[in-house]
């Protein structure tokens, strides 16, 4: 496997389970057991009601492109060779948003609100990134 040159997440106790589950090809998000809202990014307190009763639930992995950009300048080490590349905000069906990229697409067919689904990319032995592709 080629050396992965891009930044990797510095995993902490808020985020460890999320990344462990990505490695198992499961996209998990938190749900507040008090106000029943879904939450992303993972954290120790519900930002809606301040409950600390949070549970992990598996996301459908489906959602839509809330917005995106095609970057023509590298935005970090390791991205120079990818220019131009897509960075997107995905709104999952559960209502939360996360940043990702869209793979296997013709950039000219991208539009806001197009449906997408998660695909998992094991970029290192430890880290698998949740990326998205247009739903067929």
């Amino acid at each position: 496997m080629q050396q992965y040159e891009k930044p990797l997440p510095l995993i902490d106790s808020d985020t460890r389970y999320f990344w462990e589950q990505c490695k198992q090809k499961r996209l998990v998000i938190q749900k507040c057991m008090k106000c029943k809202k879904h939450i992303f990014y993972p954290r120790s307190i519900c930002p809606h009601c301040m409950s600390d009763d949070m549970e992990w639930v598996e996301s459908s992995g489906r959602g839509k492109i809330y917005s995106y950009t095609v970057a023509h300048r590298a935005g970090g080490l390791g991205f120079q060779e990818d220019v131009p590349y897509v960075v997107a905000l995905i709104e999952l069906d559960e209502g939360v948003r996360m940043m990702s990229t869209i793979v296997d697409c013709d950039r000219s067919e991208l539009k806001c609100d197009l449906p997408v689904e998660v695909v998992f990319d094991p970029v290192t032995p430890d880290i698998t990134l949740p990326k998205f592709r247009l739903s067929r």
Partner: protein
Amino acid sequence: MSIKRSAAIVGVAEHELEKGKVPGGKTVLQMQATVAKRALEEAGLTKDDVDGLFVAGSWGLPGVGSMPSVTMAEYLGIRPRYTDSTNIGGSSFEAHVGHAAAAIQAGFCEVALILYGSTQRSNRSRNLSKGRPSEYTAQFESIWGMPAPVGAYAMAAQRHMHEYGTTSGQLAEIAVSTRKWAKLNPKAMYREEITVDDVLESPWICEPLHLLDCCLVTDGAGAVVIASAERVRDCRTKPVWILGHGEAHTHTLISSMPDLTVTTAKESGQRAFEMAGVTHDDIDLVQIYDSFTITVLITLESLGFCKPGEGGDFVANGRTAPGGDFPMNTNGGGLSYAHPGMYGIFLLIEAVQQLRGECGERQVPDAKLALVNGTGGVLSSTATCILGRD
């Protein structure tokens, strides 16, 4: 609670630049010292009159810059009894104005000095390719290589275009009108007129934003001196009163922004208007943070100068250019005058110079009331000030 007319801006200064760089290889501390001295001298005050100090910056990190108001107080020999290093991005200085006026009204200080400086162009420290550490909450964004901050603003533009049909040509109009103001400002970095086609044909940075949709990368330093209503009488300058203020923020990660087409200028602006007791029609000129053309368009909508989605039509036909009926960013803005990282202090300086009638060729006739709105981070924070002369 209102701070209306409890304090006024009595001194301002901006550092001169040559092709966007500070002449003579001055340090960021020297630049701030220069503008602090000039702004105080203009007001007829000394550094010993300053008892409130407000400094935000991105210099000296890690190191002395982590406590910027403390470091600048030491360098200048100021012993403040009120100190504030609030950093909410480029809007920090509009926030400082409100904090200073509140502190003055509460009796915590009488003369406040707000400072900013940057040598980012000389240092070549603004390098997109470095990226940002992927720790804590940023671990979910830095890994994707979004050029920061421009990628986030590009996503806002993309969403605005999708929801409202806003076009790149409408965004370009903002850059074109702003350049016309820069043409009238001898201190502006770029002064040659540009066309909508020039903007559209400039290279992509992050689609749908082109190079000419983006602010400059320059050095710069600015100072603002605020005095209590009592101390204003001792000052040499015509006072520019702080009539209204508001501030708000929602996110540091663009994925956490509630709605990419609306900023918290909606709240900070509304609070500022209510405090000042004025309406949109009363405003003679506006200074709107133009980190990118889309920042201006979304801010005008959020402030309520037009309805959501109508920003493109609002700025059409050179409306914000010299001679238009909505004078905006009259120094040439971050797009054409200067943009040293955190530009917000220059919005205040230009508004004050306009209200004092000192702007020569670019003077807005009979300007009495100005609105200043700063935006920081990735559309993260806003602060609004409404300023007026006697």
